[in-house]
């Protein structure tokens, strides 16, 4: 018994180590895309949630790039669709499509549209218009239950996105239906298009608001993958929908844009790209 636990512990350490090296590669992909896309892309919002998405795909979700339409797979909905580069980089790393394709993001005829679209292998739901992901997740959660499937549904929204009324409609619905196969993650980076989230429209107390709708809710450092994993484990024990408020930094990992709105939508210059790569090397 003790030996078995030791093996499990060691395996966990190995897996976390492997996840870290994958995240490094994924972050590099996001930077490459940011330098490649001519009109720029939402790099700040992608870098704030990339650790969360990678942790889900490589440590938590049951899915297969060889069977993207496997019925009993877990699903991921990127409701904050402007962070598409983060999702694309993760999907490519997971093997859904060749990594070389990443640099075609936002180009004419590319399978990698500016915002998530079903033409991309591995994308479970279209998004881009904010506020709709939880509702879509509810539909998937209901369908899974009707099929008797163990499939779990993960929805990632932004904190700015919480301005949308539909978010609160759907929070009420999910609690009412006691959907214990639905997990919401809020990328709480504190910024939206026009400025600080609390200045545009106050979100605080976000955790309290979500709890008051009948959800369990937890806070976590959204860049600490072990903490993210712990709380994702916890979600599996819940008897209803669970929300994770992931505290993150917009533009995480690139000094000049970290926790600013500099990188809301931009193209990295060659110099910025080289500096960012150097930072990445030093951090990992």
């Amino acid at each position: 018994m003790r030996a078995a636990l030791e093996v499990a512990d060691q395996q966990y350490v190995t897996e976390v180590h492997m996840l870290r090296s994958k995240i490094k590669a994924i972050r590099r992909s996001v930077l490459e895309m940011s330098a490649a896309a001519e009109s720029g892309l939402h790099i700040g919002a992608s870098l704030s949630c990339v650790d969360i998405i990678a942790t889900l795909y490589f440590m938590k979700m049951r899915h297969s790039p060889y069977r993207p339409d496997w019925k009993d797979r877990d699903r991921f909905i990127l409701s904050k669709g402007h962070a598409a580069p983060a999702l694309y980089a993760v999907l490519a790393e997971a093997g859904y499509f060749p990594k070389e394709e990443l640099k075609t993001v936002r180009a004419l005829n590319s399978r990698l549209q500016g915002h998530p679209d079903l033409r991309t292998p591995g994308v479970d739901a279209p998004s881009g218009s904010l506020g709709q992901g939880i509702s879509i997740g509810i539909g998937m959660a209901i369908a899974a239950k009707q099929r008797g499937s163990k499939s779990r549904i993960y929805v990632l929204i932004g904190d700015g996105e919480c301005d949308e009324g539909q978010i609160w409609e759907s929070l009420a619905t999910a609690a009412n239906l006691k959907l214990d196969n639905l997990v919401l993650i809020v990328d709480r980076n504190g910024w939206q298009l026009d400025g600080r989230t609390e200045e545009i429209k106050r979100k605080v107390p976000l955790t309290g608001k979500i709890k008051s709708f009948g959800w369990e809710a937890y806070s976590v450092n959204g860049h600490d993958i072990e903490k993210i994993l712990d709380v994702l484990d916890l979600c599996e024990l819940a008897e209803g929908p669970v929300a994770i408020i992931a505290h993150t930094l917009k533009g995480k990992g690139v000094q000049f844009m970290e926790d600013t709105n500099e990188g809301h939508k931009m193209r990295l210059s060659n110099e910025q790209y080289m500096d960012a790569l150097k930072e990445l090397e030093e951090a990992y």
Partner: protein
Amino acid sequence: MRAIFGEALTRLGSMNHEVVVLTGDVAKSTGVMGFAKAYPDRFFNIGISEQDIVGIASGLALSGKVPYVVLFAPFLMRAWEQVRSTVARASLNVKMVGTHAGLSASDEGSSHQALEDVAIMRALPNMTVLVPGDRREIAEATEAIAEVNGPVYMRLGRDENVSFLEGDRVFRIGRAVPLSDGHDIAVFSNGAITAEVIRAVEGAKISAKVVHVPSVKPIDRETVVAAARETGRVVCVEEHSVIGGLGSAVAELLSVEYPVPVRRLGVDDAFGESGTNRELLRKHGLLAECISAALAEIIGRGAS
């Protein structure tokens, strides 16, 4: 209409186990209580939150279900952006049924009268837009839309109960139904208003080719163009704004394929108001006698 639809939906539920019905606190008013009682595990009253409902339907469709979203037509429009961005863009298999459309919500007033729904739904790529009117046609359409893969908007009224189609199978998506032969004028209409058109033509001394067009998108190009060719003059009648509905669809088609004068009868770029259904139809020129007078005027003008 809603009662006929409700019965058909319950029947469909017994044949197709993937059908799921979603509504927003209008289960009794839209006629879906029969389905709710027969299949409680496939029925969801989500409450008064149309945007959420369309999103949930999208998720169900993405997981292989066949969701029917049943709402009052005017308030389904509240979720038009969700329909555009998610349902239509990804061509999801969501069936949307809007009841109480046109002037049928009558005394409720203009807030409850959907006169623009066909226009805005028709503008969406991938969307099928249907306006059945005959009782058997409504029942058949309710089942037929489950057979096609893709988004559908089906527009219904409230209490109309008319029967004007004959034959074994009266409805097919994309098919228009000629109801009479005539050479002076072609009259295209849909919904229960076709019953008024038939009466209008029967009473008048004109030779009109009446064509019922329940499928606004896709439209039956062949039948519409042939009728225009045979008569050289076209009138469209609908319980909808004259902007963007059946009349526009016919005019768009004919302007390219066979340009002839097209007159559109409907609500003339205005909102409705409270009144009885008959009063409102009369006010907007949609009762048989009004249509009959309009046809005579159009033909008379053309001859002089």
